[in-house]
């Protein structure tokens, strides 16, 4: 009798525990509800709406629109201004990213080398990262004044050093302006990349380095054979985030020269902005360009991920 009772109590306890868990799990919905509502309203709906608008002829201040099928997509791939903006964005991103990742890797290697200890890592990290925190709009105006013609500080310094005989108008040169935009992007981001990669190297098991050193590997060999392969996920993370950011480049070229000279630094986002908010307010063109940008970024991210997975598997097989 007694024993039966005990079993009964146990059984009740068990079911109440199970029921309790189920009872509590519904609270999850209350906790995530505000996020989901805001997400649908402010992110998902605008993306879908942009997608819908890319199949219409919405322009100007009117709200009336007609559906035109895929006409806008056919038009945009033949649109030389759009293609030019796409090319500019890529050119500027590549000439900023290649030196950025190279210098960040070099600095990270130096500051994590345990054989030659460099002092002041904290000071250097703090200073190299500083430009990243400053408002890009202010940075653009700052560089616009620094490189201004004929009496900007850069011209003054270069003439004092006898590099230039007479002042050079940087913002009338297509190459000059592109290099300045790429330089600003590099200047703002290499510190961040350096910190992320350093953290990645510090996360690698130190015994791997020790074992290699005991086997007589040089620090360059260790870097090439151990550090770089193990850093691949972090490097790819940096690559993808930089690419997604780079494809959205807007503040710097917009405020530096507004795309001039001869549209040399007119980026994709600037093209989208100008289509939508200047002139005829061609929202349908801007929406189509936005969706093309989304597809490009997603495709590239996908390719990079595939590439990463293949390499990881190869690494495991070896």
């Amino acid at each position, binding site marked *: 009798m007694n024993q039966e009772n005990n079993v009964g109590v146990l059984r009740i306890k068990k079911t109440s525990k199970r029921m309790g*868990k189920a009872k*509590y*799990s*519904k*609270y*999850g919905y209350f*906790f*995530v509800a*505000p*996020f*989901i509502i*805001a*997400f649908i309203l402010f*992110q998902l*709906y605008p*993306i879908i*709406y*942009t997608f*819908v608008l890319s199949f219409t002829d*919405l322009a100007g201040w009117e709200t009336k629109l007609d559906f035109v099928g895929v006409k806008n997509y056919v038009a945009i791939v033949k649109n030389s201004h759009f293609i030019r903006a796409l090319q500019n964005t890529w050119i500027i991103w590549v000439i900023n990213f290649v030196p950025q990742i190279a210098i960040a890797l070099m600095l990270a290697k130096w500051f994590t080398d345990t054989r*030659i200890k*460099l002092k*002041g890592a904290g000071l250097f*990290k*703090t*200073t*190299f*990262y*500083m430009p990243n*925190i400053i*408002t*890009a*709009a*202010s940075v653009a*105006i*700052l560089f616009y*004044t620094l490189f201004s013609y004929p009496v900007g*500080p850069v011209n003054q310094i270069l003439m*004092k050093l006898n590099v230039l005989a007479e002042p050079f108008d940087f913002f009338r040169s297509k190459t000059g302006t592109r290099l300045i935009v790429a330089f600003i992007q590099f200047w703002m981001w290499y510190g*961040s990349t350096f*910190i*992320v990669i*350093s*953290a990645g190297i510090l996360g690698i098991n130190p015994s791997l380095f020790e074992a290699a050193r005991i086997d007589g590997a040089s620090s360059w060999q260790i870097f090439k054979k151990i550090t770089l392969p193990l850093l691949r996920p*972090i490097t790819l993370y940096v690559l993808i*985030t930089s690419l*997604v950011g780079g494809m*959205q480049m807007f*503040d710097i070229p917009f*405020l530096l020269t507004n795309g001039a000279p001869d549209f040399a630094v007119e980026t994709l*986002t600037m093209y*989208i902005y100008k289509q*939508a908010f200047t002139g005829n307010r061609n*929202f349908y063109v801007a*929406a189509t360009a*936005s*969706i093309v940008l*989304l597809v490009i*970024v*997603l495709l590239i991210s996908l390719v990079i991920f595939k590439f990463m997975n293949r390499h990881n598997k190869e690494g495991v097989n070896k």
Partner: protein
Amino acid sequence: MKSTRLGKYHHLTIVIKYGVCALLLILSILPFWILIVNATRSTEQIQQGFSMVPSIYMGYNYDILTSKGFNIIRGFSNSLSISVSVTFLCLYFSALTAYGLVIYDFKGRKFIFALIAFILMVPAQISFIGFYQMVLRVGLTDNYIPLIFPAIASPATVFFLRQYLLATFPKDLVAAARIDGANEMKTFHRIAMPILKPALATMGIFTFVGSWNNFLTPLMLISTQEKYTLPMLVQLLKADIYRTELGGIYLGVTMTIIPLLIIYLILSKYIIAGVALGGVKE
């Protein structure tokens, strides 16, 4: 013999490495130094030549700047009220969402998390045409509401806080709190929030700075000059009325960056640690 040669080689590489770092150090500081020095020099001095030494015309430049309608105080308070609201909403609701995703085992949890991870890869700016049209149709252009409330859904912050909770939060605490009679919200506020504090501080800095520096969204939505944020105010310095007032331009830009420089110098330790944790890079 071998060890001395190695020693010499080491010395040379160390000198080269410090040399490169010193160059980059100068590269990071010099533009700001020129900016601040020129903010104190008169336009004539700036045109005559380059100098590394501050002068005495800051007050004069300030008078010129403000006489042309550059209302930095208003821009500052506009930016501050937006950024503080954004940071508060983003942190509170992201913590709520992350807690919900970690603690409760409800249907659709995995899907929501996958959606958050996916949206991190989508460039934010691709939706701004749809966002603008939506805001236009509900008549909220030239209003701060569409600048502030989207912060309730911040996938990157949710992602970061979720990882943090998974790594540091003992779930037994929730069961213990329930036995003590605490309801679910109370458990979240009294137990989870204090544990999340370091992560909230890190994400708070980045959210605040990101909102403060945002240029494109207010540029698109705000049209009344009294409502301009600081980055929008900066673009006025390129207007024709300042063309001949170089000292004023330098001072205007200086005043927009000084608050950020001060915040940075105070919090740099946490900011660098936050960057190293990753997931905050845009």
